[in-house]
């Protein structure tokens, strides 16, 4: 820190003897050479620009009127419709959701495995011509969310759970295919090389050397995605692709709030059960 009174330039000894020599002072807050500073400024600008450009309707949300309408909206949820007939329907829809997620995940595992083989380099000699095109395909499958797939598939598969199942299968096959390919490239090459030097063909090398090594990993990835897919399948129906989501958007569209409350409760219950189950299963496996 520079004393104000000094007119002449400070001697070198001042910096060495000062109570807080300059090299011990905290660094300046902004420095043109500091990348993290520029990055923070950029981040701040991005956040500010987002809030400014979005014409967010704070007044409608924070005002007393909005609070009242929120309260009215919530009050309409009660009491939830618990008549046996409707509960039966909800249970059926929940089963449909579960079945959609399970079937979608199984198909995705099969398709992902079929795509992961050309997408991975099995050995040093493998030219793997199809590696990058297949990876591009996997990335495209993965980049489009389930809901968008479902909306696209509704056109050819019609309303109902089949479109949802296919949508889950397509998106998940992109995710799983990539994970499977990484897993296959990362295994030790010894067993495969041993078979290959004996002149065993690629199909049998895959079946007897590669697959047995990666199978546990593939199973754990698939189970993990299944857990995700149950959650995704619950909301997939909002565009009309079956399950609890379809019931939710149908009843909400007709302003049948009591029924909506029951369906929301069922959704929460299902997600909570899946969470608890997978948590305890993981704990049990890692014990």
């Amino acid at each position, binding site marked *: 820190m520079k004393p104000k009174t000094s007119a002449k330039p400070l001697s070198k000894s001042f910096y060495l003897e000062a109570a807080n020599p300059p090299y011990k002072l905290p660094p300046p807050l902004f420095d043109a050479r500091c990348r993290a500073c520029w990055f923070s400024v950029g981040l701040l600008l991005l956040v500010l620009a987002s809030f400014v450009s979005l014409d967010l309707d704070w007044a409608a949300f924070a005002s007393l009127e909005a609070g009242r309408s929120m309260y009215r909206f919530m009050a309409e949820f009660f009491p939830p419709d618990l008549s046996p007939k409707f509960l039966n329907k909800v249970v059926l829809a929940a089963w449909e959701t579960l079945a959609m997620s399970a079937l979608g995940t199984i198909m995705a595992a099969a398709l992902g495995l079929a795509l992961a083989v050309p997408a991975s380099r099995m050995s040093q000699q493998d030219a793997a011509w199809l590696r990058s095109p297949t990876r591009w395909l996997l990335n495209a499958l993965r980049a489009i969310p389930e809901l968008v797939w479902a909306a696209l598939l509704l056109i050819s598969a019609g309303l109902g759970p*089949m479109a949802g199942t296919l949508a889950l299968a397509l998106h998940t096959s992109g995710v799983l295919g990539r994970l499977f390919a990484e897993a296959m490239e990362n295994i030790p090459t010894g067993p495969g090389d041993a078979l290959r030097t004996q002149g065993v063909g690629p199909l049998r090398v895959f079946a007897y050397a590669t697959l047995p090594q990666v199978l546990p990993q593939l199973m754990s990835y698939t189970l993990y995605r299944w857990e995700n897919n149950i959650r995704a399948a619950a909301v997939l129906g909002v565009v009309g692709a079956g399950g609890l989501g379809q019931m939710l958007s149908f009843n909400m569209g007709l302003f049948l709030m009591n029924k909506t409350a029951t369906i929301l409760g069922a959704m929460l219950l299902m997600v909570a059960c899946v969470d608890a189950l997978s948590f305890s299963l993981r704990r049990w496996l890692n014990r």
Partner: protein
Amino acid sequence: MSATHLPQANLPLAGKLRDPDFSSRIFWLTFALLLLWPLGVATEFRPWVLWEPENRKVSRDFLAIFWPLVYDAEFMRMVVRETWRTVAMATAGVTLALMLAIPMCLMATRVLSLSALSGRMDRWPAVLRWCVRATLIVLRSIPELVWALVFVRVVGLGPTAGVLAIALTYGGMLGKVYAEILESGESHATHTLMRNGSGRLQAFVYALLPSHAAELASYTVYRWECAIRSSVVLGFVGAGGLGQQLDNSMKMFNGGEVATLLLIFILLVALADSVSAWLRRALS
């Protein structure tokens, strides 16, 4: 058994090759297929429906109009505007989520408890901590799409509903994971500070935060990337952005626009993916 048989038996691959596990494999495969049957029934899974002549015609017509892509100036201006809106919704949502997550994770972290320094935590702090955890879990287990459906009813169509939906769901996720990250690491420095009389906020800022900052930041960046993906989906229920345009174009069977929007969306996701991968590499 005569000795002449032995050399023959030792010849590799001489006899017919036999899979010792053949019958069991067949059994389990059949069993699995039988188990799959009820799933197929429940999901009305009839893939041959896709090949029925009229469905095939509809799909072919829809796919045929995917080409040529629509890229006139007016449409592209709209696409750029909506893409920015998507990114802005994700950014604003994650910012609000942080405002929710940071205080809650500070309340929920066990490491920052003064009474837990000496044995058990006091009763009321423990109750508070448990309540905060439960709130976070509830917030995060309601999918953002459901939040968006609810908020569209309350605040009307537009990005406000989307931002609020992302803020609530991601607030729950971030808060829970932050608390887990803060509890997972070495807590020695934090406890030393608190034992010597520093406040809890001081202990957090000078000991707990520096040792976990990289991990926290990289998780936040990852969640921002996820938020971009989900803000597209939120558009489908009327929260603005690319998703809403995609929904409109699909409903009007405008294949060229759908194809352009899908391509833009794939590029956006790839961009967010690589930005977040680069940032996370720079952080670690």
